[in-house]
């Protein structure tokens, strides 16, 4: 039995965590994440969810509790936003280095200072090198499906997974979505296992000081040093993409949804120009693309990046080989350089023969409204500018500045 409902994105995420059989939840309030973990605490208190809810004193501790629980062999979950994510930063690296199969929802929000509670992607962008798998979703149905699949991915590859969704645009917005049946989710998601679970019967000393060089263990077997361990993380991050596709295929077979887990193309078949974007912005561009095709006859499509780390460079380059122009629209940047996604797209295309014209647009920083009309106007203009000087083409355009 499945269940259709209309609810907020935060509640959709809460349902996903509950359906995934999370047993330990630890969280600290931060807008716009708060209603998600409030809902979980409510279910734990009412007995609808059989789990431990730990109301911690900081985000650093929230992930700390999850790290402890996951290391001891129990499925754990937390969620945060913006400065909360940054306060966890050290723990993010730790969880990835310890190869803990954690899942966390990040409800994306601009980072202070100045304070902003509104949406952009700077929080997640700034944590892209922590060794977490970073997924971006576009609507409530994806929040549910991707979060459930994320647990299976994290546990299969022993790499923590961050499910990103746009603050307010999704977190506080009510939309229809379908909840999968609890039994079916249980069949899809095997019981939690951490390979090195803390156990007095089989004592191991986890994350101890590791030397630059390989060294023999108590039994005489040569074990890798720090660099070897980190190299393995890098390799297996890349291998995780194929596993993610397998998991998505299995989910699709069971629940009938999915099919584009890494990159999602919209009207790309004959597209001369392609917009690359993440999160709800990619969905908004469907309307833009429809309009430009209908009103101006411009053959344009959208490529939504669903997996930001590991970066699907090869798949992206293949998808963009036929394009004449690629416009990357994003809600975050590497200050002093350009859009982080743009730089990634550019580097993904470099080794390939066909190199489309590339443009970068920065939108919606700190919740600045992104009118569809403005997107249409800028995209249309960009589609007619093949011959810009390189330094101009390579400079990000900020859309919607008011001063």
């Amino acid at each position: 039995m499945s269940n259709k409902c209309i609810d907020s994105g935060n509640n959709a995420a809460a349902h996903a965590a509950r359906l995934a059989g999370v047993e330990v939840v630890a969280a600290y309030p931060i807008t716009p994440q708060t209603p998600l973990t409030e809902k979980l605490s409510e279910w734990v208190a009412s007995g609808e969810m059989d789990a431990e809810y730990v109301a911690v004193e900081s985000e650093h501790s929230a992930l700390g509790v999850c790290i402890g629980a996951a290391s001891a062999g129990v499925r754990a979950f937390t969620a945060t936003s913006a400065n909360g994510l940054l306060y966890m930063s050290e723990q993010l690296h730790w969880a990835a280095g310890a190869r803990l199969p954690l899942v966390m929802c990040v409800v994306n929000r601009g980072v202070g200072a100045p304070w902003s509670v509104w949406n952009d992607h700077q929080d997640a962008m700034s944590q892209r090198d922590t060794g977490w798998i970073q997924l971006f979703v576009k609507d409530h149905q994806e929040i549910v499906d991707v979060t459930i699949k994320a647990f299976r991915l994290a546990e299969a590859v022993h790499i923590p997974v961050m499910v990103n969704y746009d603050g307010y645009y999704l977190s506080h917005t009510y939309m229809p979505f379908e909840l999968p049946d609890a039994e079916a989710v249980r069949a899809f998601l095997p019981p939690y296992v951490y390979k090195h679970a803390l156990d007095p019967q089989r004592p191991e000393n986890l994350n101890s000081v590791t030397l630059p060089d390989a060294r023999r263990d108590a039994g005489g077997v040569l074990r890798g040093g720090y660099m070897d361990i980190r190299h393995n993380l890098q390799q297996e991050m890349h291998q995780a993409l194929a596993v993610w596709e397998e998991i998505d295929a299995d989910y699709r077979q069971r629940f009938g949804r999915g099919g584009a887990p890494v990159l999602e193309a919209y009207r790309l078949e004959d597209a001369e120009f392609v917009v690359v974007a993440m999160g709800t912005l990619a969905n908004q561009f469907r309307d833009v693309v429809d309009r430009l095709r209908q009103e101006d006859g411009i053959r344009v499509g959208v490529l939504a990046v669903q997996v930001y780390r590991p970066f699907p460079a090869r798949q992206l380059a293949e998808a963009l080989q036929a394009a004449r122009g690629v416009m990357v629209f994003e809600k975050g940047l590497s200050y002093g350089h350009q859009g982080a996604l743009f730089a990634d797209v550019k580097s993904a295309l470099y080794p390939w023969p066909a190199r489309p014209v590339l443009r970068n647009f920065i939108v919606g920083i700190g919740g600045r409204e992104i009118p569809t009309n403005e997107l249409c106007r800028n995209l249309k203009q960009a589609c007619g500018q093949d011959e810009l000087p390189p330094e101009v083409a390579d400079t990000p355009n900020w859309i919607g500045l008011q001063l």
Partner: protein
Amino acid sequence: MEDTTSMIQIRWHGRGGQGAITAAKVVAKAAFASGYGGVVMAPTFGTERRGAPVSTSLKIARETIHDLSPIREPDIVVVLDHLILNEVDVTVGLKPGGLLVINSPHPPSRHRQKDFRVAVANVARIGEEAGLRKGIVNSGIIGVLGRASGLLAIDRLAEYIAEEFADRRPEQNVRAARLAFEATEICEPEGGAHA
């Protein structure tokens, strides 16, 4: 029922704590149950404070809605408290011929608009008559919206009011909506009714 291909955009104005979000949610659920596949209800993005004017947007369409940006050109504006009219320009962006729904103790003529249809009922008084605590207006205003827009059947709306208020006087809330539905008075634009 109105044009089924385009999107209907409803902006709700109330005060923090007054229940505009809940009312919009009820209408969203009723619309979804009535076959609208695209329903997006988004409260004002930001830091809400009790008593301060807030707005909520509700988009309804036959197909999935991809544009989640706030409503700029609503078809319908719903005002839960007529005093907000003094503080906020609630009709900003309202399409010509659009509908303005107001909870007001005054006769509709007091709220007559040049370009918009105005639907009025004294929802606050009706709510008390229906057995609700003073100041509960969000169930009643749904009745006014239902009557004036013809968007959704009152029975369907009543069903979702009963569900939403299951643990908060469901019968009285449904009664308030039905009474307000009946009491709704409509004032056509000064410039005459648009198509």
